[in-house]
């Protein structure tokens, strides 16, 4: 949670009190749902381990600052109860809970996560169109309206915690260095995105944006460092981790460039979560079993 703070604080700073409201409400709702379900399921209360708070925080980071309170309620319900607790709690969930919630919201209420609509009352001095939306509808020249440095520093429209690229990168590197997250997944995810975007860009640079643009917009960075490497839904062995990350990266760009959604991160990570157990079977044989170099 500490690692997520730089990005979140910037987001609150940028979007003001509504953002703080959403973040605070999301965290507390998440913890309340978990407490409620623990009591209903007659299991020991687990909100003390901070996992519910983390899910709430990550969920709020993906949302626009003006999210209505009932969406937060339903979203955290989906994240905690559907995404985590019905599977058994920490460690038993096959999907990333935050992403389950976002996916349910995206599919249920079409306009809820359209950042242009949600943030229409804000007046910033940077270009206010959602970058990935602009590129999808207006082609690659729209990307020229955004400067790369601006994108990294958060001069873009997006979720509360997902715009400040620098903060996310710093937080992510901190997580890797401390050992909470293995480096293989973020690196392979970003590599997958970069290479695939590069390929598309080379094929038709009028229509598809540059790879670096794709890395710093949308949910890419928060997905790479905070969402994709979630422990129970991601593989454990070396090669599977690389396949998982790269697969998610490639699929994301495919969705962004060829698919219906402006940002594919949510669904592609969920797709790779589904494939996770099968990919994880690629592992070395234990001592004394199997044929050596057959």
């Amino acid at each position, binding site marked *: 949670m500490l690692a997520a703070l730089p990005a979140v604080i910037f987001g609150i700073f940028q979007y003001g009190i509504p953002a703080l409201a959403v973040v605070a409400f999301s965290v507390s709702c998440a913890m309340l749902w978990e407490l409620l379900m623990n009591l209903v399921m007659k299991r020991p209360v687990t909100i003390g381990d901070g996992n519910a708070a983390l899910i709430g925080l990550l969920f709020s980071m993906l949302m626009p600052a003006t999210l209505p309170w009932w969406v937060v309620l339903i979203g955290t319900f989906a994240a905690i109860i559907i995404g985590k607790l019905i599977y*058994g*709690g*920490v*460690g*038993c969930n096959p999907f990333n809970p935050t992403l389950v919630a976002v996916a349910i919201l995206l599919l249920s209420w079409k306009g809820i996560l359209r950042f242009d609509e949600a943030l229409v009352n804000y007046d910033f001095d940077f270009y206010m169109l959602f970058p990935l939306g602009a590129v999808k509808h207006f082609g690659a020249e729209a990307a020229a309206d955004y400067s790369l440095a601006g994108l990294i520093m958060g001069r873009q429209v997006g979720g509360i915690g997902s715009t400040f690229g620098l903060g996310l990168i710093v937080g992510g590197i901190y997580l*890797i*260095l*401390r*050992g909470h997250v*293995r480096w293989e997944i973020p690196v392979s995810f970003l590599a997958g995105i970069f290479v695939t975007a590069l390929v598309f860009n080379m094929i038709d640079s009028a229509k598809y944006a540059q790879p670096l643009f794709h890395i710093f917009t949308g949910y890419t960075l928060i997905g790479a460092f905070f969402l994709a490497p979630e*422990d*129970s*839904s*991601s*593989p*454990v*062995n070396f090669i599977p981790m690389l396949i998982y990350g790269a697969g998610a990266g490639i699929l994301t760009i495919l969705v962004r460039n060829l698919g219906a959604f402006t940002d594919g991160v949510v669904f592609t990570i969920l797709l790779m979560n589904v494939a996770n157990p099968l990919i994880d079977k690629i*592992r*070395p*044989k*234990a*001592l*004394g*079993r199997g044929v*050596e170099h057959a």
Partner: protein
Amino acid sequence: MVKKPFFSLARPKLKYPVIDDFAVHKIVDLPLPSKVTLYLETGKSPGRLLPALGEHVKTGQKIMIHEGGGEYLISTVTGSIKEISDFTGTNGSEYKAVTIEVSGKDQFDEGLDFTGGLSEKALEFLSILPGVDPSLFIRDDIAVDTLLVFGIDRDLLVTTNQVAAGTQIELISKGIEYLKGIFPLKKTLFLVPPELADSAAETGIRIEEVKGAYPDTLPVMILKDVLGIKISNARDIRSSGIGVINAEGVVALASALDSGRIPVDKIITVIDRDNRATTVKARIGTPISHIFQALGIEVRYGDRIVMGGPMMGNAVYSEDIAIRHDTDALMVQDGGRIAWNSDSHCINCGECVRACPAKVPVNMLVRLLENGLYEEAANDYDLLSCIECGLCTYVCVAKIPIFHYIMLGKHEYARINNAEELSNA
């Protein structure tokens, strides 16, 4: 013991202890206790119990346990048999506990019949020497062609074998000559830490220096790294014709065959709650309480007493339990600093998989073991490949007692298999 650094990109290595100068290393000789307890794992012969209460025994005397069975104990003191009871050890293993009340100075049993060839002597008198695993001599159906002499210790903080090897090098050469007479050995390997390499080389046996971190000194790892042999069942190396013996065992064997008296003392590394180690020499069968009292180690409520080292030892529940011929170390762990296990779920972080030297998929294995699916665990998830080093439990973020689940799983699997064999036979 080993602190995880703040930035943990690399895993910390668990290093073995090193003794710099064997000449000045102190071995504390402990006085005799007032009573000793000897344990014998009960075999399959349910014959009448032979020893009688009150029977007088001499030091080194062989005590047959069951009528018609071949199991025996060597009395380590002179006294009278006070009690014979049943004792249940770790994982449900059954023992007969024979308690002998010590009646004073040792009277060695000079009536040992040491005639006969070396192999018969070994089988009849020497299978439970300090530092010798009974299966070495008892499994005489499979010949031993490779012998590994361990001058290194298997667990962390323990220096028993190193001390035995470092202080009695001449007896080791003699002992290996005797062993060559017992087994048709084609290869003998003396495993030593780098500090002992020079003095060990004087014995003329082939030396192998073992450095490295835990668990490189475990027999299965030695076989893999030094000899290139991969064993799939870490508990049964003997079936492959490989004999494993501690340096202390070789020394005991040599002194037994030279003097005609069976050695009854055991070298033990005693580790107190601040991880300070003392090497002691105690009579086999001494209760743990006696050893702690003699060294002034206080044991408080909530502390953990471990027979063995910190990674592979077994915790015991009472200070009245006595040391055996295979107890290499005793440890007291401070109750306030023990890491508690939890019943959390596995969070799939993968630390155990990266820590396992046998490449067992621990995260999947522990899920099956928690749910009692032992056969599937053994067949599909490599339960038997585990070398029982304990590293997975050491690194587990969710603090699951993985090692205990694995030991229980192996025990249950063996029981299921034995039951099947018995019903098939």
